[in-house]
C-alpha cells in the first residue's frame, strides 16, 4: 500500500518542465529584495532561460511517454504539443514585456513570477489526465492571469479588466466543478479513461440525463475559458484593459490550454455521447464566429478589435471540435499554434505603437506606419494577412485543415457559414493595412520609438513562425495527426 508513496524517478522526469518553471519562479521571490532596481532586466533574461529549458525538457520527456503519479498525469504527444505551445507563448510574451515594463516603469520580479506560474498551471492542465488535476491546473493559470490583467493597479481600466476577468472566471469555474461532481457521482471516478469506460460499459447508476447535464455544465465552464459565444462577454473588456503584452498572453496561452482540455475531456470522456453534445458545439461555434466578426467590424479601439477577432478565432477552433474526428483534433492543434504566433505578433506591434500609458490605441493611429517604420509595418502585414487566412501563412493552413475536417464530418452548413465569416473578417484586417500604407502619418506614427532588441525579437520570431507554418506545415501537422489519437 505504501509502495506508491514515493514517486519513481521516471515519474519525476515526466514532470520536469513544470519543476524547472516553478523553481525559477520561486527564485524570483528570493532575488527580488536582493537586486536593486537597476538590474531589472535580469528577471526577463532568467524567465527566457527558464522557458527555453522547460521547452527542451518538454521535448526531452516525450522520448519516454507514459502516465505519472498514479495516473494523474499523462505525457503523450498531445500533451507535449500543447506544452511546447504554452511555453512558446510564454517566451513570446516576455520579449515585448521588457520594453513595455520599462516604459510604464513597472518592472518587478512578481510580474515574471506570476507569468511563469501561470504557464506552470497551463502545463499541468494539458498534461493532466484526471478532472481534479485539470481543475487545479486551471485555477493556478487563472488566478495568476487575474492578477496579471490588473497588474498596473493604478490604471482604472486595468482594475476593471482584472475584476471582470476574476468574477466571470470564478463563475465559470463553479460550473465546471459542478460538472465534475456529477461525473464523479455517476461513474465513481474522475479519471478520464475510467469515466469513458463507465459511460461505454453502461455501468452508470443513474439515468443518462445526468451525463448530459454534466457535459452541459462543463461546456459552460470551458466555453467561458475559451471565450466562445455566448460566454464571450468578458473578453473585449479584459483584453482592452489589461497591459498589452498580458492581453497577448491571455489570448494565446490560457486559451490554448483551455482548448486542450476541452478537446481531451470531450473527445475522451464524453466521446460516447458525442451526438448529444455536437449540436451545442455547433451552435456555439457559429455564434462565436458571427458575433466576433460582426462586432469587430465596428470597433475603433485596436485591442478591442483584436479581442473580438479572438472570439471569432475561438469559433473556428470550435468548428474543429464539432467535427469529432482525429483530423479535427489535429486541425485544432495546428490552428492554436498558428494563432499563437500571429496574434501575439499583432499585439506586440500594438504594444510598440501605443506609446507610454497606452495612449495610441485607435485604428487611425496606424496611419502612415508604413512610411515611418517600414519594417514594423511589413511584419504587422504578415500577421494581419495570416489572421485573414491568406495562403503562404500559418493562418491559411489552419483554416484550411479545420474546414476540411468539418467537411469530412459532413458539417457542410457550418463550413459554408464559416467561410463566409472569414470573408467578413478580411474587411476589418484590411482596414488596418490600408490605414498603414495609404494614409499620411498621424501623431502616433510620428512619435514612434525605434525598436529595441527585445521588441525586434518579439516581432521577428512570430513572423518567422507564421511563415514557416504557412510554407512547411507538413511536419507540425504530421505530429499533430499522430498525437490526436486519445484512446489507446
Amino acid at each position: 500500500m505504501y509502495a506508491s508513496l514515493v514517486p519513481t524517478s521516471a515519474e519525476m522526469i515526466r514532470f520536469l518542465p513544470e519543476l524547472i518553471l516553478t523553481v525559477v519562479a520561486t527564485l524570483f521571490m528570493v532575488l527580488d529584495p536582493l537586486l536593486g532596481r537597476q538590474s531589472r532586466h535580469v528577471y526577463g533574461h532568467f524567465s527566457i532561460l527558464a522557458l527555453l529549458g522547460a521547452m527542451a525538457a518538454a521535448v526531452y520527456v516525450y522520448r519516454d511517454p507514459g502516465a505519472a503519479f498514479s495516473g494523474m498525469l499523462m505525457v503523450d504527444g498531445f500533451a507535449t504539443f500543447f506544452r511546447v505551445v504554452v511555453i512558446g507563448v510564454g517566451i513570446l510574451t516576455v520579449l515585448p514585456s521588457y520594453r513595455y515594463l520599462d516604459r510604464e516603469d513597472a518592472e518587478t520580479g512578481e510580474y515574471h513570477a506570476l507569468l511563469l506560474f501561470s504557464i506552470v498551471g497551463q502545463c499541468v492542465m494539458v498534461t493532466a489526465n484526471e478532472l481534479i488535476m485539470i481543475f487545479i491546473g486551471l485555477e493556478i493559470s487563472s488566478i495568476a492571469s487575474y492578477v496579471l490583467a490588473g497588474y498596473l493597479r493604478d490604471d482604472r481600466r486595468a482594475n476593471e479588466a482584472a475584476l471582470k476577468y476574476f468574477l466571470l472566471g470564478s463563475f465559470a469555474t463553479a460550473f465546471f466543478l459542478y460538472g465534475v461532481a456529477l461525473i464523479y457521482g455517476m461513474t465513481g471516478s474522475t479519471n478520464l479513461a475510467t469515466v469513458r469506460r463507465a459511460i461505454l460499459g453502461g455501468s452508470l447508476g443513474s439515468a443518462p440525463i445526468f451525463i448530459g447535464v454534466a457535459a452541459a455544465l462543463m461546456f459552460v465552464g470551458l466555453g467561458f475559458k475559451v471565450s466562445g459565444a455566448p460566454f464571450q462577454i468578458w473578453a473585449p473588456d479584459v483584453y482592452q484593459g489589461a497591459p498589452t503584452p498580458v492581453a497577448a498572453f491571455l489570448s494565446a496561452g490560457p486559451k490554448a490550454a483551455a482548448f486542450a482540455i476541452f478537446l481531451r475531456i470531450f473527445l475522451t470522456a464524453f466521446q460516447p455521447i458525442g451526438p448529444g453534445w455536437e449540436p451545442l458545439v455547433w451552435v456555439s461555434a457559429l455564434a462565436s464566429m458571427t458575433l466576433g466578426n460582426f462586432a469587430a467590424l465596428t470597433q475603433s479601439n485596436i485591442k478591442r478589435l483584436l479581442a473580438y477577432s479572438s472570439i471569432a478565432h475561438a469559433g473556428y477552433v470550435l468548428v474543429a471540435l464539432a467535427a469529432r474526428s482525429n483530423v479535427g483534433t489535429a486541425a485544432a492543434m495546428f490552428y492554436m499554434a498558428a494563432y499563437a504566433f500571429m496574434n501575439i505578433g499583432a499585439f506586440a506591434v500594438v504594444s510598440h505603437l501605443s506609446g507610454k500609458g497606452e495612449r495610441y490605441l485607435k485604428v487611425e493611429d496606424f496611419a502612415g506606419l508604413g512610411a515611418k517604420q517600414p519594417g514594423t509595418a511589413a511584419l504587422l502585414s504578415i500577421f494581419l494577412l495570416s489572421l485573414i487566412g491568406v495562403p503562404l501563412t500559418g493562418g491559411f493552413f489552419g483554416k484550411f485543415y479545420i474546414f476540411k475536417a468539418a467537411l469530412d464530418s459532413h458539417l457542410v452548413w457550418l463550413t459554408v457559414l464559416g467561410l463566409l465569416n472569414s470573408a467578413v473578417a478580411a474587411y476589418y484586417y484590411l482596414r488596418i493595412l490600408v490605414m498603414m500604407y495609404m494614409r499620411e502619418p498621424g501623431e502616433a506614427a510620428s512619435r514612434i520609438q525605434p525598436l529595441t532588441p527585445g521588441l525586434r525579437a518579439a516581432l521577428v520570431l512570430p513572423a518567422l513562425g507564421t511563415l514557416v507554418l504557412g510554407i512547411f506545415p507538413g511536419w507540425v501537422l504530421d505530429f499533430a495527426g499522430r498525437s490526436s489519437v486519445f484512446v489507446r
Partner: protein
Amino acid sequence: MLMDTILFYLFAALVLGGGILTITRRNAVHSAIFLILSLLGVAGLYLLQSAEFLFAVQIVLYVGGIMVLFLFVIMLVNLDQAAKEKQFNRQWTVALACAGLVGAEIFYFLAKGAGAFQLAKGTAEANTGMGNTERLADALFSQYLLPFEIASLLLLVAVVGSVVMAKKRI
C-alpha cells in the same frame, strides 16, 4: 434514523434560508452573516455524512478564514452609500430561467422519489477500520500526492498575487 432525518431538515433549512437571505439582504454585512449561517449548515450536513475532517475544515477555513476576510474587506470599504442604491438588475428573463431551473430540479426529484439517483455499482472501498481523517490522509499522501503538492503552488500564487495588488509601489 429519525434523528438523522430531523437533523437533515434542520440543516437544510439553515443552508437554504441562509442562502436566500445572503443574496437578498441590502447590507453587505448582513449578507456575510447569513452566508456564515449557510456555511455552518453545510458543515452540519458534512457531519451527518460522516465527513468529520471536512466538517472541521469547513468551519476553520471557510467560517474562520474566508468569511472573516470578507468581513474585513466590507469594513474597509464604505458601503453605507451602496446600501441605498438599487440592489438588483432587472433581468427578468434570467430570473424566470433560474426559477424554472429550481422548479425543474425539485420536480424531477419529487417525481422520481428517493431513488432518483442511483449510483454506479461495485465501487465501495473495503472497510479497513480506520477513522475518517486517517483514511483521508492515506489517500491524500499516496494517490493524490501530486494534486496536494500542486495545491501548495496555488496558494503561493495567491500570496504573490495579493502582494502585487497591495504593494506600495509596483
